[in-house]
């Protein structure tokens, strides 16, 4: 279709759908109402299992299979992206040229902030069950913290200081561990991904049973896969070249 015809078809379809959506939305319960039946079930179940952060309880305890699916999507997509970004037959990977020049101030801020961010990320992962955040958010903070190296130094510095094998191992073992923990819970208590560990007193770090274990596992996996994913994009951009011959 021509651009104009395509726009017309879309506006027609989108318009009718938008009108139906608006009419439908008016019948929905008002914004900000206090009628949330699922919350009234989820909050006591989370408290019963000693998990202060109810979102973490829903993610890792009550609807844990969703998070299992999510982590499997993460490793499957990272694997797919790495496979799609591999150098093709007529390309080679050359040592990245060291041509970046960074201001002294950014270099200083980078070196100061990097360890800080890594500690913050580890803290967000560790306190997943009791404070906002958790395995996934902590893993992302850790990955972005590591890439401060790229901002401060240059890509060769980043390339030297983060060998990929440990991160690929972290990613694969983290994702596999999620299934293994679920299977252990199945053997232990007879239902997959059940919260099998004893719950201590409410609000403590280790009082949330398998929620804390799964948080740790997801944190490791997300840290690994984000680094591997960004490394694939960096490599494609900086060091993959067509063979000259």
């Amino acid at each position, binding site marked *: *279709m021509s*651009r104009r015809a*395509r726009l017309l*078809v*879309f506006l*027609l*379809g989108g*318009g*009718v*759908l938008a009108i*139906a959506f608006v*009419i*439908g939305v008016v*019948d*929905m319960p008002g914004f900000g109402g206090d*009628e*949330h*039946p*699922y919350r009234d*079930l989820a909050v006591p179940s989370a408290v019963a299992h000693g998990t202060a952060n109810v979102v973490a309880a829903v993610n890792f*305890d*009550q*609807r*844990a*299979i*969703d998070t*299992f*699916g999510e982590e*499997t*999507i993460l*490793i*499957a*997509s990272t*694997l*797919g*992206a*790495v*496979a*799609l970004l*591999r150098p*093709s*037959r007529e390309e080679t990977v050359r040592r990245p040229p060291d041509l970046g020049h960074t201001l002294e101030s950014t270099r200083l801020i980078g070196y100061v902030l990097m360890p800080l961010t890594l500690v913050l990320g580890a803290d967000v992962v560790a306190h997943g069950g009791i404070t906002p955040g958790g395995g996934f958010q902590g893993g992302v903070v850790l990955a972005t913290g590591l890439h401060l190296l790229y901002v401060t130094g240059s890509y060769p510095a980043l390339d030297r200081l983060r060998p990929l094998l440990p991160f*690929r*191992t972290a*990613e*694969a*073992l983290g*994702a*596999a561990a999620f*299934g293994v923990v*679920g*299977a252990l819970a*199945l053997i232990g*208590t*007879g*239902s*997959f*991904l*059940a*919260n099998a560990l004893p719950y201590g007193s409410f609000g403590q770090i280790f009082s949330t049973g398998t929620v804390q274990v799964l948080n740790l596992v997801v944190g490791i996996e997300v840290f690994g896969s984000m680094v591997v994913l960004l490394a694939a994009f960096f490599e494609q951009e900086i060091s993959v070249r067509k063979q000259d011959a």
Partner: protein
Amino acid sequence: MIGVAHDPWMPLLVALPATVACLLALCDRALPRRVVDVVAMLTVLGVTTGSVALLIGAGNGRSLTWLGGWHPKDGVGVGIAFVADPLSAGLCVLIGSLATCALLYSWHYVARGGTHFHALMLFFVAGMLGFVLSADLFDMIVFFELMGAAAYALTGIHIEDETAVEGGLNFGLVNSLGAYLSLTGLALLYARAGQLGLPQLGRLLPEHRVDVLVVVAFVLVLAGFLVKGALVPFHFWLADAHAVAPAPVCVMFSGVMVELGLYGAARISLVAFGGVLSEDTLRRTFVVLGLVTALLGAVMCLGQRHLKRLLAFSTIAHMGLFTIGFAALRADALTGVVLYVAGHAAVKAALFLLAGVLLDRHQSVDEGQLRGLGRGRWGEAALFFTAALGLAGLPPFGSGLGKAITEDGAALSFGHWVPALFVLVSALTGGSVLRFASHTYLGIGDRGEPETKAESPEDEEAESGAPRHTPATMTTSIVGLVAAGIVIGVLPGIRGFASAAAQRLLDTDGYASQLLDGGPATPLRHDPAAAWTGTGILLGIVAIALALAVAAAGLWQERLPWLRLGHPVMRRLHRLHTGHIGDYVAWLFAGLAALVLLVGLART
């Protein structure tokens, strides 16, 4: 009284392939190639035997497990359930066996290093199994995304082939947009019902007035599944993705992934929306979708010269037939659809693997270039012609039996145009494949004008550097699939299973009572119609005769001038399938708008 069986081991069917895939992802470069093949094959065989055990465990009733031990109390709960009724367990067996054939075929598949082919295939299998077993709407969408992510990567895995990467992107973008629209629909349902499980939604939705919100939520939730099921006008991505994906991946796409779209739409429409949308509304909506899809797919299939694209449109046409069979909402028609899906999967998988063999040997699957190159390979030609006749509904084949029973049942709901349509579509699709086979293996028929713009560029990259003679693993998987196609049609036990699967799908009250209250399942009726009938065999023969006529017309079209009339229509339809991502999204929204009007009007 058949009580509900608790089977807590069910989630291992999903966890096992995912975990093995993670370990393979780590060390598949370090391990020798044969070890990776064996590990992947063992995993898939384990999954298949587990699915068969699940099927036997479910028997004629259902087996279920509440994950994490979160059982519902008086109808509502926080947990998610995995349910295996005969239909979902049967689909798990289909997924496992197709994956086994695909991996057996790719035994000599020298995928370049670093492609993680086997790990991605195992993630793909895990995603499909999770999707089939889950009884929670959000969980289905999560596994829908997992299935999609692995499929996008597998489609574009041959990055040296420019059509593969483009097909992968079209496939990825449209399917993801469909999944996000399903999520929007889910948010609307959650706002009203406050629960996410299918049986819970089925019980809570009727407590509110049936209004525009229900219609919009129904259409939006179905969007992702209609896109995956390649129903018109959401089908455009399928031809692009199938024409370029490697043969073993196409086996999984056409064999079972596309059918899962219809399975998801069926399960949600019956269980979640059964109480708010009348059966007439569902009938009218799905029969219109099925009719348009079947006709467009069959006509487009006729005009294709690229074998994989031809088979892709044949899949779209058959999806239309399955949708009409489902739309009848009758147990006997659904029994036929279950058999038809199984038979079609076996035959279509065999044809895609044969396409892979041809692509391997001649680096092209274009009808013009392959003309006469297949002479002398009688074994391959025999397999090709048998599979093509099976596709057209030859009586001993499962697809023939499925077609006969489906058109018989659907005719009671919609009238006698249904058998005519089934015969016409089978003839057009089967005829196109027969024409291709005759051109390639017999070298007969007109020279035909050389393809002006070769559909597939000549230097289409060889799929796998396999040696010129076809290795044994490839032929065994193809022969196995064709044999399975026949066994499905002949073995009486399979018809019993199909009848149980159909009745359990329609028994939505039993589904809800077994899941939420642990009540007994209603006993099944014995369905005598699920067998070879006189009219069924007769219609099958007519379809074959028509298919041969279509093939002959295609072979010698220069001598039949009146065929010229069809060319302008064909050209306009062909120009509609542009491959432009903007077009696909525009058609997606136009289709959804039309569906909202159709469902809205059908309801009043």
